[in-house]
């Protein structure tokens, strides 16, 4: 303290404005000397004269401080003065400072965390030179949805014809491979990329070399692989010696590891972590790849382009329209009616068709957290208002001594900015902690590595700082202007109570806004919580209990389609012989799982209504026994059978929704339809299954059909086992069996069906949004209650005199309490009215994220309002109760 005072008094002034500070000091010193001499001349003793002169002069520090204020011009110096003064003020009121900083830190922290997530997923540019010129290509065919997967021949045509607008065009397709290197087998999510991929993106290798333009042209050629930096770090301990070593893909093909991609580059597929890159030619390894380099019906390439410098997206789109019509004319069988367009990569995450929905969700949650920040700011404003009225006298004195109004406002703004900066610093800490917590949410073993690269980054910091500074300015401005407007004479001469009423009105309005904001947050939280509850209890149409799932990719063991079918048969036979197993089957997709597939259909006799797109349906590939394992009732017809073989007529089982759509008043069994992907094999309908959920928990059931694994082989398979015992206990056993039957296959993924339903595509997203909204709602409620409590306590304290008088005149404690509560109720009900309307508007905007609950659900609104009123009245009760304890005599004696 003493050291601090020394610094403040002697060192800082010299450092900041050395000459003038020394001058002033000398000037005052001279004054004191003269005054002392004068008194000695009058006959006082020298010691007494010096003492009395000094006493009469008053507080030397204060005088020089105020005098220095007159210099004005040195803005750096005044700023520093303000800062030092502000620090001192904050330190003098530790309780106030802690409350304000904590409040702001929570508000800013929540915003930083969420902004980090949104930024890393949606806003962060690709880590390549000039990321703003990277565009993703998509097309629409006739009335179908916007699609992003092109055939390789189409990609080549587009690339050849678009050199006027694009520097280059690249393509990639993704796949899963098993990679055996240095004796360890691992499953990897990889991209097969065209040779110009890395050169077009402008990337340099972290190690070794990248894939080159001369590679990837002839199917099966160029057996090389580039590892991602992350995979190299985690699986090979960042060993530089890995470059040049051999590895085996899917247990059959030797490849050379040629290099490591740069740090921070995760591939172009949004939200996913690409672990290795292979030339496009190596995609031939995939059993389902077909003649992908020539067949225009095989659409598996994601196409990206780099715009030439100075070329606008519109110009590129004009060019692509021409190319599209050329493609349609040149190959009417596959490409008729194709219309191609480009989207800037950053505006098209995760894909151009759903980018707007994703952005909507992000904006919604940012708005909710922004609301929390607003509530926090209002709270701090309220605290500052209380302090401003406590400091009215100080302000008046400073004004009387000649401090300008602007100077006072600046002083107060500096103080609130200091608060905001401390709050911002705390917010960054909370935000870092929260985003780390968010990125460690277990997304429950999906097959593909999700990219959760949520990290502190400068733009997030800038956001938090901007939030803090804006909050500080808003929070500081109102009390500052009010305090500086204080009526000097009135304050100095009277008790200054006349100003209080107006200030209380503003504070009451602020509290009403807080109440409405927290009501909104709570209602949204309650709607999300009910959605989660409903999702968890929804009738899924299948029975997830007592089912164990183990997922593997038969291709990773090097199996062809025929080998894979044989393996599936052996596996099922082995599992069915296990004790406790009631049923076992294999499926490609599991409900709420990561993999799914759908196809455009051709249904004889069905005409889509005018303006509607060609019909699409989801489908699953299953083995006989699937409906028994999942307990999905087969309503009519028969299950798949061992007799349904690749060379017998292809068969399908459809769900009720599909039967209803295409054959409303007829019997579908025995009729047929075709998938666009496989026109050679019309599907004969052999049965109708009851509707069940695939990827949602409410709303109409999706159109779905099932085909047999033997007739429509896929290598990614999940074996599902229904057991009387605990399915968890069965998982390791199942994984052992699979490894035993298929040596060299990477470890399969085990999960119970109940767990699978709780993953990101299942209830987890509802759990995350419910938890997030609940956290925000609690925070908002807390802030509003602090605000309400503060205003009521303050005004009760202000009215001590009046309340004492009332009690002296015979008012009983109950009527005093009622009076305080009534004052609270006015603010609360104004807030509720505003909040209910706003919540209704907001809830409509989130209705897409709700499950089986109306956005205007009266029960939710009523119970949340009731809860809020109860808590709010409790917050008013405490100061009200204190008011009833006022001793009338003591209260009247105060003045």
């Amino acid at each position, binding site marked *: 303290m003493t050291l601090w005072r020394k610094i403040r008094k002697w060192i800082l002034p010299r450092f900041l404005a050395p000459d003038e500070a020394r*001058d002033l000091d000398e*000037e*005052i010193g*001279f004054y004191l000397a003269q005054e002392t001499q004068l008194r000695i001349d009058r006959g006082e003793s020298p010691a007494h004269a010096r003492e009395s002169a000094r006493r009469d*002069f008053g*507080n030397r520090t*204060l005088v020089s401080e*105020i005098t220095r204020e007159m210099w004005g011009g040195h803005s750096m110096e005044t700023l520093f003065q303000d800062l030092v003064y502000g620090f001192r003020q904050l330190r003098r009121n530790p309780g106030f400072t802690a409350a304000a900083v904590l409040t702001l830190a929570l508000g800013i922290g929540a915003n930083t965390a969420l902004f980090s997530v949104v930024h890393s997923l949606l806003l962060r540019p690709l880590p390549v030179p000039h990321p703003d010129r990277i565009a993703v290509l998509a097309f629409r065919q006739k009335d179908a949805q916007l699609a992003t997967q092109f055939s390789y021949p189409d990609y080549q045509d587009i690339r050849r014809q678009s050199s006027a607008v694009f520097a280059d065009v690249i393509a990639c397709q993704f796949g899963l491979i098993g990679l055996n290197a240095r004796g360890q087998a691992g499953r990897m999510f990889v991209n097969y990329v065209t040779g110009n991929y890395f050169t077009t993106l402008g990337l340099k290798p972290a190690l070794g070399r990248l894939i080159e333009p001369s590679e990837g042209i002839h199917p099966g050629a160029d057996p090389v692989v580039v590892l991602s930096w992350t995979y190299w770090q985690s699986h090979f301990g960042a060993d530089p010696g890995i470059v040049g070593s051999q590895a085996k893909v899917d247990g059959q093909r030797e490849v050379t590891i040629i290099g490591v991609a740069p740090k921070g580059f995760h591939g172009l597929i949004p939200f996913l972590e690409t672990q290795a890159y292979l030339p496009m030619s190596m995609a031939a390894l995939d059993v389902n790849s077909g003649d992908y380099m020539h067949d225009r019906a095989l659409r598996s390439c994601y196409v990206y382009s780099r715009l030439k410098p100075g070329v606008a997206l519109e110009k590129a789109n004009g060019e692509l329209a021409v190319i599209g019509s050329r493609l349609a004319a040149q190959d009417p069988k596959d490409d008729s009616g194709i219309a191609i367009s480009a989207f800037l990569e950053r505006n098209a995450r995760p894909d151009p068709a759903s980018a707007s929905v994703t952005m909507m969700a992000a904006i919604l949650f940012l708005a909710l957290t922004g609301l929390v920040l607003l509530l926090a700011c209002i709270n701090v404003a309220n605290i500052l208002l209380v302090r401003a009225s406590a400091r009215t006298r100080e302000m008046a004195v400073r004004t009387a001594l*000649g401090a300008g109004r602007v100077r006072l406002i600046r002083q107060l703004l500096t103080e609130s900015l200091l608060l905001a900066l401390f709050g911002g610093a705390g917010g960054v800490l909370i935000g870092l902690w929260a985003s780390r917590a968010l990125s460690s949410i277990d997304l429950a073993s999906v097959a593909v590595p999700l990219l959760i690269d949520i990290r502190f980054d400068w733009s997030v910091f800038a956001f938090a700082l901007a939030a803090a500074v804006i909050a500080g300015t808003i929070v500081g401005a109102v009390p500052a202007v009010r305090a500086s407007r204080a009526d000097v004479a009135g304050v100095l001469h009277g008790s200054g109570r006349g100003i209080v009423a107006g200030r209380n009105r503003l504070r009451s309005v602020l509290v009403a806004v807080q109440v409405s904001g927290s009501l909104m947050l709570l209602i949204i939280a309650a709607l999300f919580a009910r959605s989660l509850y409903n999702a968890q209890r929804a009738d899924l149409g299948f029975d997830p209990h007592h089912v164990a799932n183990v997922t593997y990719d038969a291709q990773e063991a090097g199996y062809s389609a025929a080998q894979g079918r044989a393996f599936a048969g052996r596996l099922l036979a082995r599992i069915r012989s296990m004790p406790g197993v009631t049923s076992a089957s294999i499926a490609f997709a599991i409900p709420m799982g990561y993999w799914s597939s759908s196809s455009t259909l051709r249904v004889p006799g069905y005409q889509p209504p005018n303006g509607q797109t060609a019909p699409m349906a989801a489908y699953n590939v299953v083995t006989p026994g699937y409906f028994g394992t999942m307990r999905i009732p087969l309503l009519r017809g028969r299950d798949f059978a061992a007799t349904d073989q690749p060379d017998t007529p292809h068969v399908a089982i459809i769900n009720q929704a599909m039967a209803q759509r295409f054959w409303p008043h007829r019997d579908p069994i025995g009729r047929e339809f075709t998938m666009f992907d496989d026109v050679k094999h019309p599907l004969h309908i052999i049965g109708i299954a009851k509707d069940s959920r695939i990827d949602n928990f409410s709303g109409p059931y999706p159109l779905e059909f099932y085909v047999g694994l033997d007739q429509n082989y896929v290598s990614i398979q999940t074996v599902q086992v229904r057991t009387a015992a605990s399915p968890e206990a069965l998982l390791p056993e199942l994984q052992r069996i699979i490894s035993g039957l298929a040596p060299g296959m990477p470890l399969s993924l085990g999960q119970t069906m109940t767990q699978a339903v709780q993953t990101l595509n299942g209830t987890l997203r509802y759990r995350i949004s419910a938890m997030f909204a609940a956290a925000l709602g609690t925070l908002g409620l807390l802030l509003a209650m602090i605000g309400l409590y503060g205003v009521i306590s303050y005004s009760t304290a202000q009215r001590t005199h009046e309340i004492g008088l009332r009690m002296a005149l015979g008012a009983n404690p109950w009527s005093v309490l009622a009076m305080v509560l009534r004052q609270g109720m006015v603010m609360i009900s104004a807030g509720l009215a505003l909040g209910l309307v706003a919540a209704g508007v907001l809830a409509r905007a989130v209705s897409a994220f709700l499950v089986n609950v109306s956005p205007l659900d009266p029960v939710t609104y009523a119970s949340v309002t009731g809860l809020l009123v109860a808590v709010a009245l409790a917050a008013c009760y405490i100061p009200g109760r204190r008011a009833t304890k006022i001793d009338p005599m003591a209260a009247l004696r105060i003045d």
Partner: protein
Amino acid sequence: MASERYQNRLELLQGTLDMMILRTLQWGPQHGHGIGLAIRANSGEVLRIEHGSLYPALHRLEKQGWIGSEWRITENKQRARYYRLTRAGKKQLAQEQSRWKRLVDAVAGVMQPSES
């Protein structure tokens, strides 16, 4: 209770101090202490300038450009800061004086209506 304060000394109207400082400096450059003494003496010991207001006022006036300052050596061989009236200060003083005179006349008119 509050009125007790007024009995002992006259309170300066805002701006009056500035005017008196300018007026004092009309007789020639003077340091802060001297200005204080001069005002006290010329007011018949009625007006005691609060030191807390004198220096802020001096620096404020200097910033306005109405007075200038320089360091000189006094008769006693001490360094002191002397203030002097600038050209702008003279103009300002003239303005303030005429305004002051009008104010005094007006107040006098109110207090002694018979004479007018």
